[in-house]
């Protein structure tokens, strides 16, 4: 028996068949459920018309299911004005809250409908507590929930849940969005217009280690998803113990929500392990935990550049820019305040990290004149030192 009674299932309902199934299951089992509805004018992937969406909303409300409106499409000014006009025509009092991602949508709702609760989608970045707190402060009591990024590890989720005073939501089952473009990228290949429809496809590249990225094009642009869907249904207890009590299941795409609804609901009502196993084993697409256990997507950065070729401290002189074996090397003086003169001892750090310390026996200009001093931006010739190559950094020793 699981301890997930306090977790609310947040899910999308796209048609009356799905809604009827939910209503039936809800009657059989006491589950906390919240239904997200969208219309194709406002929601990124919705195929539902405004009329259908309103019909779903009314039916859900009649059956005591909370309904939240989604407006998560990103819109340039012209399209944004059109979206605002759609919003203004909706019976917004019928919705428990509105889910928003575009800061413009946030600002519009905040100012025009200050009574309408906002579920703020912060899945895109927003990986620090300072920022999350600032969003909460800005929206105040109008903000009823933060929807957090899939890239946050459980350690971070736990930390945030302890500090933030607001309910938090994460995706626990569904596609992971990788890419969102305003442009229509699939229809040109089919040489046709999408109008109000949707084109779906899979993309595979030989240059990528993965294959079969789901793709969607619709009126909002083109979307690419991960080859594996996020699956954290086996972590509901853990999330609940962290006080993350809103878990989203998003099966709007080619998978049937109805097929899995019963078992998912049993899981959310603290029911048996078999339900979890059924979902996991029978789901047609590969599953992944994403960054839930750990996020190390910055560890490779240190390997992307050679730190030894960077200047380090106040004793910096410059860089070797040319080497003529057994004869001379060209040193470009780059330091701001150092005067370089013969007889000083210099330390050279090669790109491979080797250190060479030598005394400057002579220094010449490019026309062969002996120099007693060199200044910033001068290019000077100095004696050859074996093992030193171009990009070696030179310091006063």
């Amino acid at each position, binding site marked *: 028996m699981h301890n997930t009674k306090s977790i609310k299932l947040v899910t999308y309902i796209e048609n009356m068949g799905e809604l009827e199934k939910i209503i039936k299951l809800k009657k059989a089992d006491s589950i906390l459920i919240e239904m997200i509805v969208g219309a194709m004018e406002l929601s990124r992937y919705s195929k539902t018309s405004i009329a259908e969406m309103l019909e779903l909303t009314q039916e859900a409300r009649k059956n005591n299911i909370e309904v939240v409106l989604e407006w998560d499409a990103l819109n*340039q000014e012209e399209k944004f004005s059109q979206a605002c006009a759609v919003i203004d025509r909706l019976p917004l009092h019928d919705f428990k809250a509105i889910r928003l991602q575009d*800061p*413009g949508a946030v600002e519009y709702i905040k100012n025009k409908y200050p009574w309408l609760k906002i579920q703020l989608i912060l899945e895109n970045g927003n990986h620090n507590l300072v920022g999350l707190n600032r969003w909460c402060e800005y929206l105040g009591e109008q903000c009823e929930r933060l929807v957090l990024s899939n890239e946050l590890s459980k350690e971070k989720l736990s930390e945030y849940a302890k500090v933030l005073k607001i309910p938090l939501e994460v995706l626990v089952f569904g596609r992971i969005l990788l890419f969102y473009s305003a442009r229509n990228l699939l229809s040109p290949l089919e040489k046709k217009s999408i109008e109000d429809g949707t084109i779906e496809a899979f993309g595979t590249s030989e240059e990528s280690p993965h294959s079969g990225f789901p793709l969607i094009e619709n009126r909002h642009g083109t979307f690419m998803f991960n080859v594996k869907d996020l699956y954290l249904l086996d972590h509901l207890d853990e999330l609940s113990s962290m006080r993350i009590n809103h878990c989203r299941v998003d099966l709007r795409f080619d998978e049937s929500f109805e097929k899995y609804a019963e078992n998912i609901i049993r899981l959310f009502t603290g029911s048996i392990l078999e339900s979890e196993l059924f979902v996991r084993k029978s789901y047609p697409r590969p599953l992944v935990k994403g960054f839930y256990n750990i996020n190390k997507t910055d560890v490779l950065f240190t390997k*992307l550049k050679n730190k030894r070729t960077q200047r380090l401290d106040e004793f910096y002189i410059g860089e070797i820019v040319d080497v003529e074996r057994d004869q001379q090397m060209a040193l470009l003086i780059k330091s701001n305040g150092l005067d370089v003169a013969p007889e000083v001892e210099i330390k050279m750090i090669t790109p491979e990290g080797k250190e060479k310390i030598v005394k400057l026996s002579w220094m010449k200009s*490019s026309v062969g004149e002996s120099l007693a001093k060199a200044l910033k*931006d001068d290019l000077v010739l100095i004696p050859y030192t074996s093992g030193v190559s171009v990009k070696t950094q030179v310091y006063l020793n």
Partner: protein
Amino acid sequence: MAHWTPELLSPAGSLEKLKVSVLYGADAVYLGGQKFGLRQASDNFTYEELSEGVEFAHSRGSKVYVVLNSFLHDKDLEELPEFLGLLEELKVDAVIVSDLGVISTIQKHSHLVIHLSTQASCLNIESAKLWQKMGAQRIVLGREVTIKEAAKIKMATGLEIEMFVHGSMCMSYSGNCVISNYTQGRDSNRGGCAHSCRFEYSIDFKLESNESKKAYFMSSKDLEGIRMLPEFIEARIDSLKVEGRNKSHHYAGTISKVYSDALSFYKANGNFLSSDMLSWEEELRKVSHRDYTTGSLDQYAGADSIYNDREQDDNEFVVSGIVLEATVGQHLLVDVKSAFHPGDILEVMPFRGATQKLDVAFLQSLSGVALLKSKPGSIVKIPYIAGAEKFNIIRKRAQHA
């Protein structure tokens, strides 16, 4: 009477490139420190280089903006205040930011001017108003926004507006792509982008047909906004940004020079000549680029903005080197970027005015040894040409098979 023109903002991927951009006419440059930006593989600037870069730019009347536009995680944010102190000390002109946590940290620890990065995908008036309340003084609009829409945003908010005028474009809404995170384990929004959008994909349309089509369907053509300058000026867009901190000296110099020449001409004359426009376009084709598009500057980018082709290096010109020293009447010392030979005809790009032909009558090592070929990464002597200066770019027409 001088006519109003926007600021030209060029990339500075390194200290040397900063100097090139400024000398070739940039009114401002943007650059990254060792952390907090989106180009982890770039040279980026150490504190000392930053100090020298700011001094160099300011002494020539150019501004310096520092990118802090990663989506920072908590541990990154802890390291930020110290860097902010250094930036204030150096008197950088602004920082470019996309994350609200970063904005809040900047406001708490400094008085630095905040520009909102395109990474925040600010696309409409209401969004700009929100970021204005959060402390942004300038908005770098998303590349999906038209100039007409940008004008409305400026009018409604009074904010400074910056738009991209030239360079590579993300196909995704900026900040809305995490392909690298999930496929390569590199955070694209902290500088680890692996450019998966430039790959060729085979596309299977499961609903429409069973056939598979191969295409570079996610790769965008490069932005070229030279012909849109009258519209930018009419809309009073404050700053025109050139993409390309990872790009070459040749790119930084050429693009800065062309747009600077164009804006200077307008400043003096209040118009553009079609003959000049043609020659500027010709110059822009001499640097490394994909096919050009005006993107969404005029109307939302359509199918013709997709670069459905393999990435290739078929530039009309390649950079031969950068002048390190010009010894009048004797020689130029050139930092070689690509090989050339005695007898080659090169072009020297002055900071102002037309390019000059340079006959490589001799090619020597620094010790005076005659060379048959210059080696990239070495310094060579070639004949002096009147007017050549330190940091001039020398280029050569490419020879394609």
